[in-house]
Structure formats: C-alpha cells, structure tokens
C-alpha cells in the first residue's frame, strides 16, 4: 500500500468513526441502546442497569419453568437475546424468542419484563423503567407454533 492510499484509508476510518458518534447518540436516545458500548464514546454518561424476567402461565396460572426445561439451543437464544437487548435496546424484538420458548414449554402465555435503570436527566433521580411484553401461544405465527410432524 503506497502512502497516498494509506492516507486515504486511514482518514476514511477516522471520518467514519467520527460520524458514527452522533448516530450512536441517536440510537441511545431513540432505542435505549447502551451508551457504554458500541464505539459511541458515551461511557460515564449514564448508568445502564439492565435486567429481564420471563414468567410463564398456563390457563392464567403462573407455572414454574426452569431453564433446564428448554433445549440448549433455546437457552443460548435467551442469553443471546439478553445481551443484544441490553446493548442494542428496542432495536432487538423479543417476538421470535418468545414464541420459540412457548413452543418448547407447556405454557400457553409468557410475559417478558425488561427493567432499565438510569438517571432521569431532568430530575437527577435514578429511575427504573419497566416494559412488559405479553405473548399468547394462540397468536404465534404458524411457522413457529405448529408442532413438528
């Protein structure tokens, strides 16, 4: 690589990274992406405390389902969803995972709750925002919910 090409390539990397910062800021504001990750240089701006729970129901009664009740593949998908949702926020949708878990469990309903703790910039208070998603087996897309023959 000659000096001129090197100059152009390195300058391009720096320019693209500099332009990424406002995009990252937009993703943090719009989708609750993790400010500490993603090369946006927004670490030490706001805590990003993330937690999520999965609750399963059968005929309206909560049932105890342990992670051991799922296949290893499904467990990996849960962990993957947890990591991606924590860092990429609402850009990552839970539907596919939820119907997969409903398919593998004896439950007919699942509630996914996500808690995100961070500072309210207006009040300076630490607040936990909760978001819940309810999934019914009956609403599952046929390709996912249909039992294998």
């Amino acid at each position: 690589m000659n000096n001129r090409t090197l100059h152009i390539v390195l300058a391009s990397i720096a320019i693209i990274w500099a332009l990424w910062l406002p995009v990252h800021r937009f993703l943090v504001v719009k989708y609750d992406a993790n400010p500490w990750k993603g090369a946006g240089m927004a670490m030490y701006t706001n805590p990003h405390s993330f937690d999520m729970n999965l609750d399963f129901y059968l005929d309206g009664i909560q049932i105890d389902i342990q992670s051991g009740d799922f296949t290893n593949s499904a467990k990996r998908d849960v962990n993957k969803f947890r990591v991606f949702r924590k860092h990429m926020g609402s850009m990552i949708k839970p539907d596919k995972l939820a119907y997969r878990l409903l398919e593998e469990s004896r439950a007919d309903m699942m509630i996914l709750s996500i808690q995100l703790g961070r500072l309210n910039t207006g009040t300076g208070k630490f607040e936990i925002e909760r978001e819940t998603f309810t999934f019914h087996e009956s609403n599952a897309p046929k390709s996912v919910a249909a039992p294998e023959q």
Partner: protein
Amino acid sequence: MSEHSSPLTHAELVLFRFIQIMILHVAVREFIRGLDNRAVYMMVFSGVITVGMILSFWVKTKQVLIATMSIVSAMLLFKLITTFPGNSNHFYVELFTSLAILMVLSGPIDEKRKSIFRDYIMWLIVIVLAGSGIQKYLAGTYHNTAFMAYKVFSDPDFHDFYYMFDPAEARRIALQSTDEPFAFQNPFLRIMTISIPAVEILAGLLLLFNRTRVLGALVGIATLIGIEYVAKELMFGAIFCFMMCFQLPDRIFLRLIPLFIVIYILLTGLTLFVPSFIFN
C-alpha cells in the same frame, strides 16, 4: 551485512517501538484476562505474541512485526465477532490501531508514512477525548452533576475520591435514598464535575494543531491520569497514555519506551501478586 543486522532508519525505529508496545499491551491484557478466566488459550496467545515482540528487538526487519500483528489483528477481529455487541469502546481503539499498523507495515516505511500514522493516532485520540466530552454534555448528566453524584453513591472508588475533597458531601450522598435526586451541593465539586467534559474537549482540540499538539498531549495525559486514578481502567489508561506520548517529539517518545515496558511489567506483577487490587 545480513538484512536483520542492518540499522533501522529513524522512521522505522519510532514506528517499530510504537508497534512493540502495542503488542506488549495486548499480550499483558490477554494474559491478565486469561488468568482471571482460567483460559489457557488466552495465555498461550499472550505468550506467542510476547515472543514475537521480543524477537522483533533482535531481528530488525518488519516481517516479525507483520507476523505478530497479523496474529493480534486476527484475534481482535475474532473477539469483535464473538463478543459483539458487548465490546468495550476501548476495544475499538485497539482494533482500529492494530488494523492501521498492518496497513502501515504493508509498504516501505519513511518519514511521510510515519507522519500519516501519527496523524491517524492523533485523530483516534481526538475522537475518544473530544467525542466522550461532547457525549457527556449531550447526555445531560454533567451540568446537574447527577452522574458523578450517582457514581459516588454506587461506586466505592468514586466515593473515596470525592471524600478526599469533601468528606461530609461524599457521606451525605452515600447515605441518601435512591428516590432523591443525585447532585453535589458543594460548589467546588460542582465546578470540578462540570469541567471534566470541558477538559476532555480542550485536550482534543489542542491536539489538532501542530503548535499546541504537545500541550494537548500533556493536558490529555494529565486528564487521563486523573480519570484512571478513580476509574481504575489501567489497561486502557496505559495504552491511551502511550498513544498520547506518540504525539510528543520523537526523542522524548523514544526515551519513554522503557517507562511503558516497566508499566506493563508492573501491571502484570499487580495481577499476579496483589490479586486484591482490581483494575480493568
């Protein structure tokens, strides 16, 4: 005279030293992580690139550095894929630097090439420093001191740091309820906290101009030492400090190389012999 005993040009010497410390940084970081996670493969990787780094002091051709940096870059790319999107921001600095080094080594090294690479490293520093300063203001948690007050509440290292300036204020925040707003009342602590992003932006801006570049590097190094004293991200602190020293005149930069070798040996020693001292 054989090729490996031919003396290095000045540009080669400066760039080779930069690359050698970069390899040492990755080697020490992977060794520490390997130790923490009991991951033998990370320690083997660390050993292999350390051998490459040491060898490059004797065999004065870029082939050894190209081979070692290829391994380093491949490992960083593998890490990017396997740990995405949880990679730290600091990881990207290492990745972008390593890839650039491979590109620099792909052609004959002269003063012009060294200058292009040095400017690139300067831009990476500016993006990190000024970028994080701007992000802090945009986030809206510094003008009201909410973030730092929250850190004093939740992180003992930050509590101990602010305790040195105002014990009563640090104690008040540590004991407050999470329902109350987080903010410093002490005017000095407020000014100190609000000015953190300003200093980061200032250091970045000073680096941009040839006349103020050395001053920018010194302000940046001082800021970083202050931040890492509290945050204890010593691995990032060491390499970022080194990158800023690369902006100093060559003769000063070359004299500082032994210091950075000692710093990395100390960090390895701390991990091995003082496990209670936790740092990133």
